[in-house]
């Protein structure tokens, strides 16, 4: 049996390790576009205030995973899933360009969602969705600090990630303006009272919060970038944090059923019985995507057990909660997740 996993986030890596421990005979290959190893995605939100983050964020190197008999093909992109002969086409790997699978696990995660009006300006803003993004942001920031300039940022989006990044940059001494389209912060996860508390915490840490902002676009002004909302304001750099978009393109190309995510049944199985999906990309029969660490790891461990023949019942979501990593903020009420 050859199991191929696409993606080296918590879904792919947790599955691979668990399945390895349950099935000694199977061949396991994990294919990833990443080069840095398995890293902690939650720690991206502490990417400016933590010293040595570029090393400490790596929880397991690919060599360490290889030592557990998991074949890792890094820096490689899957260009197609060929369901007629159960193969995947691989680009960027020096080893192989096509590989046969018995079971295929899609754990490709999500990319930053960029609202359509911002797409023409993609040269003008950063996102913070991966370690590669964080490194680019840190390099840019260091460039300014080395010129004795304290960076002046605009964050577009007052959801979970936007608030976390605004908080961490302000905590690190930078100037931060947060633009949010709605009338309160993190309105999806927090009750109004906690949104008010969050606003107060961010303001006290020096973040300028602008609510009800209709951001229409961006423009380059010499070494500054401007944000066009009610009034136009200039910043050293922008970060767009407007949510996530599951990477469903490969599944769509292969003709799998796709909604917001890749549709799966209670066994995490897509419309092709040899192909499974996990994590941010998996849309359960109830229409939900479980894009939080705890249920994702739970799905991955469950699926490893299922494929190894140890589970008969379908996956059921565990009880979980979340917490925004905003310095000095604790919500009073439970998060809506």
């Amino acid at each position, binding site marked *: 049996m050859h199991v191929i996993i696409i993606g080296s986030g*918590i879904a792919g890596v*947790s599955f691979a390790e668990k399945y390895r421990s349950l099935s000694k005979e199977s061949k396991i290959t994990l294919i990833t576009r990443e080069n840095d190893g398995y*890293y*902690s*995605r*939650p*720690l991206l939100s502490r990417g400016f205030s933590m010293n040595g983050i570029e090393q*400490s*964020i790596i*929880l*397991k190197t690919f060599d360490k995973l290889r030592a557990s008999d998991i074949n890792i093909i890094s820096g490689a992109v899957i260009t197609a899933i060929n369901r007629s002969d159960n193969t995947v086409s691989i680009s960027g790997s020096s080893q192989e360009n096509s590989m046969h699978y018995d079971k295929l696990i899609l754990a490709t995660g999500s990319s930053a969602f960029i609202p359509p009006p911002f797409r023409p300006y993609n040269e003008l803003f950063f996102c913070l969705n991966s370690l590669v993004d964080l490194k680019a942001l840190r390099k840019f920031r260091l460039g300014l600090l080395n010129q004795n300039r304290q960076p002046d940022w605009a964050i577009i989006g007052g959801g979970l990630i936007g608030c976390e990044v605004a908080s961490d940059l302000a905590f690190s001494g930078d100037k931060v303006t947060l633009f949010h389209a709605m009338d309160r912060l993190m309105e999806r996860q927090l009750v109004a009272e906690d949104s008010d508390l969050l606003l107060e915490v961010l303001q006290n840490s020096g973040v300028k919060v602008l609510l009800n902002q209709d951001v229409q676009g961006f423009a380059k002004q010499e070494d500054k970038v401007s944000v066009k909302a009610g009034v136009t304001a200039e910043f050293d750099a922008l970060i767009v944090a407007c949510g996530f978009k599951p990477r469903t393109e490969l599944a769509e190309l292969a003709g799998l059923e796709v909604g917001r995510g890749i549709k799966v049944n209670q066994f995490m199985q897509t419309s092709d019985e040899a192909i499974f999906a996990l994590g941010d990309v998996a849309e359960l029969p109830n229409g939900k995507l479980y894009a939080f*660490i*705890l249920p994702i*790891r*739970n799905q991955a461990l469950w699926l490893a057990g299922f494929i190894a023949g140890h589970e008969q019942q379908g996956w059921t979501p*565990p009880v*979980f*909660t979340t917490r925004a990593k905003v310095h000095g903020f604790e919500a009073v009420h439970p998060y809506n997740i």
Partner: protein
Amino acid sequence: MSEYRKYQCSVCGHIYDEAEGDEETGIAPGTRWEDIPDDWRCPECGAEKSEYSLML
């Protein structure tokens, strides 16, 4: 000697079992929770030690 206890990471669900320690992060079997350094992090998700709670 009291019984070994288990602690669970609230972020990812990882379980630290004092009896087993954590080989990956160099924590020997039998290491008590309070004897793990404060800068130790969850080996699965990177959460801080303070994110763990005792499993009852």
